[in-house]
């Protein structure tokens, strides 16, 4: 067993190591002849012949190019035969879908099994061709022949978005993108090397950073988006912060030729690749050089670089701190002491005890450090010995929470399983932490590694539903068996998973043209709501609606209703809706807001006359022209007249027509607006414009009750302060509303003198209170005395400001009190 430090190389004050992970399974692949795209997190490689490079035509090679998908261990997963035009660029999404961008702006998105969907970058891309493209996990930016930038920021709903015009007229020396999650604005930014400077372009503007150090022939953003590595034409490597505020390092490579690849290794060193030469440059200008026999390809990861060569896959990374502390030669860190102690223990040397004693206080930390270091090891052997050391140290501790130990053991088991060369996902502990187990499971599913995925899920106590559903779907797609057999097979496997959703599986069957199978499977779906989409696409319209109603989710009901409305003839549509009250109610309330014409049809076919009538009536209120308005009202009237139950409404509507006609006349006569007013308001308004006779006429026409008329007249006269008018009204005959309102309206208008005129006409027991309101204390007192109302008298006395009157009231009070 070689010492762990054998492959370490010192770069200034830190160590780097390059470990071989796989011997490639592929045979004789000359990487220099291919255009390559590799997915991060130990993801797959996509290779397609680079049609700009000359290739010796070989016998076994087909003329038509293919895209080859390999695992990181060089195992061929899929061959996609390529029949379209020139591929401008390839990249991987976060969910391991391969993107191929074509010259004409078409983007194809392949899953690992070669199934694809496609979308276009739009007209500009088509007309001016795409000349280059850059990717990040959730989006891409394409550069067109007219030097415009088009971004896609969401592959689920791809919508081409133009970025600001960078205003350049020659291809950039190099360019790159800063993914949205790293920018201040949370929108993608593009860096373009133009002349000797860099342009920063986003959706709204292109800003010149006014640099002089260019032209920059290569650039690369660090994995955390904070730094930018640039390669200048005079062979200098320059690292700056992405806001160009901080100058971090400069390094002269003495190479006039720009490197083929410039990538970051973690966040503190940069790796450059020229033909067969790899140069790693640290932040303090130190460097390491590696040479290769063949062409290689560098895959940047968040914590290192994967180096793919024709015969191996290696991982180059900074040695993690925990590992360094333990294995560095001469290290006296507690964890190193612990590791050493285990060694002595196994050799039965008493030094073991000495070691443990010396780190007694830090033992707990040492244990944790060993656990962490184990996580960073690729070699099973070192994983084991580090965990053993941790476990050894643990036994000296009285209280120690073993969770992290157990957790790490689990993670390592999972990682070792996926790193196995047949699976070929060389994921590090750091990457696993970043990616999450769920995402790892998804990757296994998309590779159809169902068994491993299920095992991992069960091991980590995660839900296996997704895996089973995916399995069932692909089974259905691939199987040639008859529908009953497939159904039985699927149901058997899924039987002991009571909560599993069958709708997606059924949907797959339906799409594969196996409708019978779909129906059979759908019966197993426990949720009414989830059956709906499939039932709709299976043309089971009525059943879909029934199920939607059953689910209680009104929006789902709307979903079906709107779908049916689009699809069916009106008659059929109503026939399905009619006997379902909730569907009817929802349709009604939708129509009221969005489609009144449909509502009319709906009411008509269901013979809902009152509703039809009211709808028509309400429409009339939106008609500005009075003739139109009257026509509408008449239509409503006809509908009401059909119904014997609604004679009252019919009569009212007749009146409303009469009123409107009268109002039209009034508007002509007085050139003032009247329409829209009610009968009472019309009368009121006529009185306020001194047209009492006209008011009386309207009153007569509509047989307005006396009481109401008096109230209206009184209030209208008070409003125009026609006190004589009020007096005349009061005298005209015995008031049907009494005289109290006269007093009160005058009081409200602050006309106490006017009010006083009517108090004596009111009921005797009210008079005192009314006088009090107009601050006539003496009169109030007299009235209260007459009524023998002691309480009111006291109240008056309290309020009265005049001492003389107070005395008088005191007199009344004592008189009354004595007479009791």
């Amino acid at each position: 067993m070689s010492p762990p430090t054998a492959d370490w190389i010192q770069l200034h004050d830190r160590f780097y190591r390059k470990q071989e992970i796989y011997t490639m399974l592929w045979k004789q692949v000359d990487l220099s002849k291919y255009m390559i795209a590799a997915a991060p997190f130990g993801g797959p490689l996509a290779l397609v012949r680079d049609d700009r490079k000359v290739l010796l035509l070989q016998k076994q090679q087909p003329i038509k190019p293919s895209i080859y998908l390999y695992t990181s261990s060089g195992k061929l997963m899929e061959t996609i035969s390529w029949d379209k035009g020139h591929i401008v660029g390839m990249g991987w999404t976060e969910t391991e879908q391969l993107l191929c961008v074509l010259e004409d702006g078409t983007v194809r998105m392949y899953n690992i099994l070669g199934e694809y969907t496609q979308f276009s970058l739009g007209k500009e891309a088509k007309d001016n061709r795409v000349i280059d493209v850059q990717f990040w996990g959730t989006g891409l930016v394409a550069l067109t022949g007219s030097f415009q930038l088009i971004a896609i920021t969401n592959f689920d709903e791809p919508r081409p978005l133009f970025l600001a015009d960078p205003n350049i007229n020659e291809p950039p020396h190099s360019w790159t993108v800063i993914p949205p999650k790293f920018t201040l604005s949370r929108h993608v930014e593009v860096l373009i090397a133009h002349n000797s400077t860099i342009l920063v372009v986003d959706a709204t503007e292109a800003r010149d950073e006014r640099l002089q150090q260019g032209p920059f022939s290569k650039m690369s953003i660090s994995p955390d988006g904070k730094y930018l590595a640039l390669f200048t034409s005079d062979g200098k490597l320059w690292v700056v912060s992405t806001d160009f505020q901080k100058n971090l390092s400069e390094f002269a490579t003495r190479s006039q030729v720009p490197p083929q690849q410039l990538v970051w290794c973690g966040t503190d060193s940069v790796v450059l690749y020229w033909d067969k030469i790899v140069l790693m440059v640290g932040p303090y200008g130190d460097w390491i050089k590696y040479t290769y026999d063949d062409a290689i390809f560098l895959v940047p990861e968040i914590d290192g670089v994967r180096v793919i060569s024709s015969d191996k896959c290696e991982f180059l990374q900074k040695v993690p701190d925990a590992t360094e502390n333990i294995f560095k030669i001469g290290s006296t860190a507690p964890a190193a002491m612990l590791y050493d102690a285990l060694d002595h223990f196994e050799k039965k040397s008493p030094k073991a005890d000495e070691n443990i004693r010396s780190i007694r206080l830090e033992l707990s930390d040492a244990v944790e450090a060993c656990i962490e270091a184990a996580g960073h090891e690729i070699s099973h052997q070192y994983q084991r010995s580090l965990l053993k050391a941790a476990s050894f140290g643990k036994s000296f501790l009285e209280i120690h929470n073993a969770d992290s130990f157990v957790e790490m053991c689990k993670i390592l088991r999972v990682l070792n399983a996926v790193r196995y060369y047949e699976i070929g996902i060389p994921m590090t502990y750091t990457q696993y932490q970043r990616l999450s187990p769920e995402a790892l499971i998804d990757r296994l599913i998309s590779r159809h590694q169902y068994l491993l995925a299920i095992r991992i899920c069960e091991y980590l106590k995660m839900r296996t539903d997704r895996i089973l559903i995916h399995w069932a779907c692909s089974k259905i797609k691939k199987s040639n068996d008859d529908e009953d057999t497939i159904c039985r097979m699927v149901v058997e496997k899924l039987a002991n998973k009571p909560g599993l959703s069958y709708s997606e599986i059924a949907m797959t069957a339906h799409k594969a043209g196996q409708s019978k199978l779909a129906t059979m499977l759908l019966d197993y779906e426990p949720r009414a709501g989830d059956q709906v989409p499939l039932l709709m696409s299976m043309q089971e319209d009525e059943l879909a609606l029934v199920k939607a109603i059953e689910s209680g989710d009104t929006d789902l009901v709307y979903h079906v209703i709107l779908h049916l409305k689009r699809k069916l003839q009106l008659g059929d549509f109503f026939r399905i809706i009619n006997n379902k009250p909730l569907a009817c109610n929802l349709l009604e309330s939708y129509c009221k807001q969005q489609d009144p014409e449909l509502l009319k049809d709906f009411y008509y076919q269901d013979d809902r006359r009152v509703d039809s009538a009211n709808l028509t009536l309400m429409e009339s209120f939106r008609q500005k022209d009075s003739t139109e308005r009257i026509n509408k009202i008449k239509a409503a009237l006809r509908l009401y007249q059909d119904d014997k139950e609604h004679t009252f409404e019919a009569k009212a509507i007749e009146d409303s027509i009469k009123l409107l006609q009268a109002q039209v006349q009034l508007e002509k006569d007085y050139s003032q607006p009247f329409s829209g007013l009610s009968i009472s308001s019309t009368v009121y308004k006529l009185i306020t414009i001194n047209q009492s006779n006209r008011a009386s006429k309207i009153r007569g026409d509509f047989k307005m009750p006396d009481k109401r008329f008096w109230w209206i007249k009184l209030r209208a006269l008070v409003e125009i302060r026609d006190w004589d008018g009020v007096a005349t009204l009061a005298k005209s005959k015995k008031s049907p509303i009494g005289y109290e309102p006269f007093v009160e309206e005058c009081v409200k208008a602050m006309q106490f003198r006017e009010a006083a005129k009517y108090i004596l006409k009111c009921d005797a027991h009210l008079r005192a209170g009314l006088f009090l309101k107009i601050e006539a204390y003496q009169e109030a007192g007299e009235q209260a005395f007459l009524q023998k109302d002691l309480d009111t008298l006291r109240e008056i006395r309290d309020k009265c400001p005049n001492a003389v009157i107070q005395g008088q009231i005191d007199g009344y009070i004592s008189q009354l009190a004595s007479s009791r």
Partner: protein
Amino acid sequence: MSTSTAAAVAAASSPAQPTGAHLGHTSLNIDSLRDLARKELVNVLDSDHGVEKIYHLQPGPLETDCKNLIYICRPQVNYMKYIAEHIHTHTKDSRSGSYTYSLFFVPRRTALCEKVLEDEGVFGEITKGEYHLDLIPLEDDVLSLEWDSTFKELYLEQDTTSIYYAAKALMRLQGIYGLFPRILGKGDYSKALCDMMLRMRREMAVDDLDASQTMQLSQNIDSLIIIDRSVDMVTPLCTQLTYEGLIDEIFHIKNSFVEVDASLASAASAPPGGAGSGSGTQTAAAAPGKKKKVPLNGGDKLFDELRDLNFAVVGGLLNKVAKRINADYEERHNAKTVPQIRQFIVKMGGLAAEHQSLRLHTALAEEIMNYTMTDDFNRILEVQQNVVAGIATNKEPEYIEEMINKQAPLVQVLRLLCLYSLVNSGIKPKQFEFFKREILETYGFEHIQTLENLHRLGMLTKQMTTKNTYGLVRRSLSLIVDEVNEHAPNDISYVYSGYAPLSVRLVQCVVQRGKDNKPGSGPSGKGSGIAGGNGWKGFEDVLRMLPGRTFDETQRVDDGQPRPSKRMNGQPRVSLVFFLGGCTFTEISATRFLASQEGGQRDFVICTTQILNGNTLVDSLVQKVPDLHASA
């Protein structure tokens, strides 16, 4: 690089009100609910963080310098139309350049809205997302969905969307606090809600088997009582007589904020708990006529003391508090030594806040007083109390007629008239026709529709039978209590000065039964747990007279045994009361009063679809017509 972002928020709810400091003090930890909502809001905004401006979503074009617009609104058709209008004006105006639009639906995106966006031709322009905010904690003991239109939607249009949302929200509560061991309820829609919850629980087993298996019966919530608004339409029509109720009647409290004259509010320019920054009203100067939003919640200690009291005693209490604060200030003269002075200074911060709150509430109380002193108010109140108490004279219909003749606001008239109709099982045919005619001729013929709406809801009907169900209910549940001591109330009827809200009385029947079978006669004995209790047993006759079904469901965990929830020592049991279709502030106060009678043995948490009062309820049913002259 500043790519500016603006958010347009529909006024339906303002979830990010920084007024949550008052929450989190009861046995049910509402905090967890709030944190969930808050975290998600950050997620919503973080996709484009750095919001520069906030606009209220309104009809008409949106003029802004920001190029990234985030809309946050309810999935309602009218909002979609506003947004479409914004986009159309932006695209027409070539100068404005390109905008990006994001739309977050609260609580979820709907097919309906997407269809409208499609019809308007803007579907493709917008990135859509969801913000799953359902129950909003207004107080420690009040959670509301804040769906303002629920009443009309549910009862008039019979659109059951709100039941679905309510069920979802309750499921979420169960997810946080555990299964409710018992669900009781009255009313057909209550039953529908209960059924939907039970079904969702079954389906949840499908979504997440582990979660449903591990879901335990709630530790402290022992029951959910659902009251359907249609069971008790009388209560919201009555004038609320508590302090908070009257503020609502007069100023209308919206999302726990009240809009008052700036001059009134200036007394409390920085109310405790902080004013909503979302509305931007903070800057509004106290110019006359300007309106200002003031938060009303339990963070304001004084308000917390006053809110549930009958208004009659508020004046005296304010007076007392004023005297105390004054005395506290005077203490400064006694502070002689440096430590004493320091102590006083520390105390002074609290005093200033208290003082400010005192000023606000004195001003509010004064405004309310002015209103309650008017003849009109008192006559309406008298009529209303006579009607509810079943004192039948000619005066009540006569007064309603007079109100119409005086062209009093239609909502006020209808409130009384509906009350009159509901209590008397309808209005005598001749009178009924008379009132309908009076209303149409005085307020306009468009109200044919208004009357039709009220008729459909059974709020304004022709008397068909002389049997007076309401009278029977009133008697058997002692809804009318003659002797009310507002200062030391002994029954929930204090909130309406003598009328006990039926809805809360029904809740009382469940929690206080077994004591003397006659609620309303004051506190007595400690209630036993509801989970194993008798529910509404003994009140079947009354319940049968009320509309809708009665139900009583027990939720079990998988071992099949309904276990009485183990109670942590000293922790009171909690009953969740869900008012489907909305509740009033008085009902909240009355429910709190029930809790106070339980001597710390039981707490209530009130959930509702929205908070309403007679005005908002009736107004939602009144037919509106465009004013032709205004637009001409």
